[in-house]
């Protein structure tokens, strides 16, 4: 059966092309697996790119110890079922110093437990390239990203020194001390990710679907309580709400939305008529002006 080559077919083929280009040019790549829907699509595309081989690189999860329990369970199940090597890294020095998202500013917490942790893990294993699920449609500074994004020694991103990327030619030759981030989903939109999850019948973490969950409201945002580590402020009460997440991260920093969309079709439908941009749910991005750009320059993914 010949299928029409649709825009999702084109995006899929482009992503597979990118995976193969990176695997052929970099010495030791790794796939940053963050468990969310974008990672799910990323991993699926990696499997397609190297079929009938398994992807020739491990998965790396930077575990802040504050991920939703459902995420961790999904992560372990995925790696086990697909028979893939899963590396888990936590910034233990940060964790021992008690850096958490409850008492520390989101920017500091993110820097220590995500940015620094990621750098530690990349350096520890000597990875010269890391695949990530970032999309250009997510946020203004990401709209300028290359597919192969180079980091100078110390993992710094220098927006003025990014290599030109022409046609489909992805130049993966590294200078001394350089490493690369590779973004196979660069040209996908949030809608494409959902469309693709639906089309390919992929499982995602149940947190993406509406359910009755214990919540509080703080700063105008709905937070779901995943365990008892978040002390309630005066006047805050736990209320059961029917909510879901558009994006997943550390649970005290990830806002939920009220929704009845309890299956993938309903979520896709809601996304189609979305009235707010996706990253509104990520509290760290509201921390300061140009927050994402600054985090990227410092080495955040």
């Amino acid at each position, binding site marked *: 059966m010949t299928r*029409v*080559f*649709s*825009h999702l*077919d*084109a*995006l899929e*083929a*482009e992503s*597979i*092309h990118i995976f*193969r*280009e990176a695997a*052929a040019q970099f010495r030791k790549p790794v796939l940053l697996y963050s468990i969310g829907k974008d990672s799910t699509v990323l991993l699926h595309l990696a499997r*397609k*790119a*190297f*079929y*009938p*081989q398994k992807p020739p690189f491990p998965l790396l999860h930077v575990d802040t110890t504050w991920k939703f329990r459902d995420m961790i369970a999904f992560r372990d199940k995925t790696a086990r079922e697909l028979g893939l090597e899963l590396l888990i890294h936590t910034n233990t020095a940060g964790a021992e110093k008690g850096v958490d998202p409850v008492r520390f500013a989101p920017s500091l917490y993110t820097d220590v437990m995500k940015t620094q942790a990621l750098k530690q893990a990349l350096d520890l294993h000597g990875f010269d390239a890391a695949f990530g699920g970032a999309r250009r*449609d997510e946020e*203004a*500074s990401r*709209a*300028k990203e290359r597919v192969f994004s180079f980091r100078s020694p110390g993992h710094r991103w220098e*927006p*003025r020194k990014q*290599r*030109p990327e*022409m*046609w*489909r*030619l992805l*130049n993966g*030759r*590294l*200078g001394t001390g350089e490493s690369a981030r590779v973004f196979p989903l660069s*040209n996908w*939109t949030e*809608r494409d990710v959902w469309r693709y999850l*639906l089309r390919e*019948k992929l499982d995602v973490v149940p947190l993406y*679907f509406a*359910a009755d969950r214990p919540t509080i409201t703080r700063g105008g945002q709905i937070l779901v309580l995943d365990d008892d580590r978040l002390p309630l402020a005066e006047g805050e009460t736990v209320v059961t709400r029917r909510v879901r997440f558009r994006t997943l991260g550390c649970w005290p920093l990830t806002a939920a939305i009220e929704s*009845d*969309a*309890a*299956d*993938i*079709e*309903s979520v896709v*439908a809601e996304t*189609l008529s979305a*009235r*707010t*941009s996706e990253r*509104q749910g990520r509290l760290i991005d509201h921390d300061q002006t*140009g927050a994402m*750009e*600054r985090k990227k320059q410092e080495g955040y993914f």
Partner: protein
Amino acid sequence: MAAGAGTGQAGMTMASDEARALAATLRDLDGIVRILTCGSVDDGKSTLIGRLLWEASDLPEDTRQGLIRQAGPDGIPDVSLLLDGLVAEREQGITIDIAWRYFDAGRRRFVVIDSPGHEQYTRNMASGASHADIAIMLVDARHGVKRQTRRHAAILDLVGVKRVVVAVNKMDLIDWSQSRFEEIAADFATITERFAFEEAVALPVSAKLGDNVAGRSAHTPWYAGETLLEIIDRAPSRIIESGSAFRFPVQTVLRGGTDFRGLAGTVASGVVRVGDPVFDGLSRRQANVRRIATMDGDLEQASAGQAVVVQLDTDLDVARGAVLSSPDAVPVVARAIEARLVWLADSPLDASHGLLLRTATDLVPLSSIAIRARLDLETLQETAVSSCSTNDIVIADLSLAQAVAVDRFADNREMGAFVLVDALTGATLAGGVIVTAAARSASEGNDAFVLTNEMLARGVCAGLASSDPEFRRRAQEVAIILRAAGVTVARDKGPGES
């Protein structure tokens, strides 16, 4: 793929009929159109793109409301705020890098590639342009066509954009003058006729007010042409070159089970079917296609744009860099290339640096590069020069230390484009397109030092199979070092190596 196949347990009760109806309409779109925007500083490019997004796309409501709240006393939202992203840019008030924006309209995806106006960042514009199906060039109605306009037209032509629109912007600031518009349109026509564009049109707009962007302007009754959205709407999606000769640049070799050895790649052009004979120009060997594999099942055929794994009936031992073609329409196996280049690096060409030519999937050292002429951006004539620096468009003769399989850019976009890479830093120095390609250059003598696999296997590549990518990488490094020391190096590959 229609929705409705899911079996989410809660879905049976929770998804409303309305939601299901919506999801059912969420089919894949028919195609993708990439639109480049370019112009000089302050031509109002960000405003024009912002206006396109504002008029044509389904902006998130929070974004839309945010802009309405921030509007000045005149109540007109500053739609350019939808574009300028980086803090560094906001501080300088210029767009330093290409920004990608995505929206769906009708049955298609539109990608806006917003490229920088400042001359210093012309390389970013060239980079963005190479991805575009259509380009919108902005000209400020008060200033008319400038040097930068000519540069941009030349780059668009070089990288293969076939459709250009000149949007004469800020018409409101010149009282919608028809004579001024026609003067600019005529100036533009004298530029575009110099190049190989298939379509070049001019239209009068006000990006700030929206005139002739989505709706026809009451201020320009003398303009009978299309609005910008109408022009974009009829632009074809990326042309799938299924009609031209089959080309399959091999990206990597994949293995599975005990006997599966497949060549992974994206079909660059044409079609291949199971049973077709295919030819590898570098090794001059032929085989037949046994399987076209994907994780979703085997295919009977694969055409341009599809990423597949090709298994052959005899093991040609080809590796990354090889290009499979049909035996009766083969690419050129070239050692000498005449090319047009846009120089992207900050520093001028330094021929003493080791340079690498990166084609679709191959990477080979240059043994020499000679700049022959530069395009003068005032006259659009070529003038003889021997050097080139940032943003120059030049004609150059390249000699390669090792043969590559290529086509002329005019014949095959995927096979005729390349970048030049600094062997030491890895930087992308130039983008180029192949004008002519030949087996051997006239200047190439017989005095080249021949680096054989045997030599390499004795020392630096000891313990590696010659088919190992690491073998190949080390061989390239040795060639680069020798070349940097002034030795003309040729690689003599063993049988079976591509």
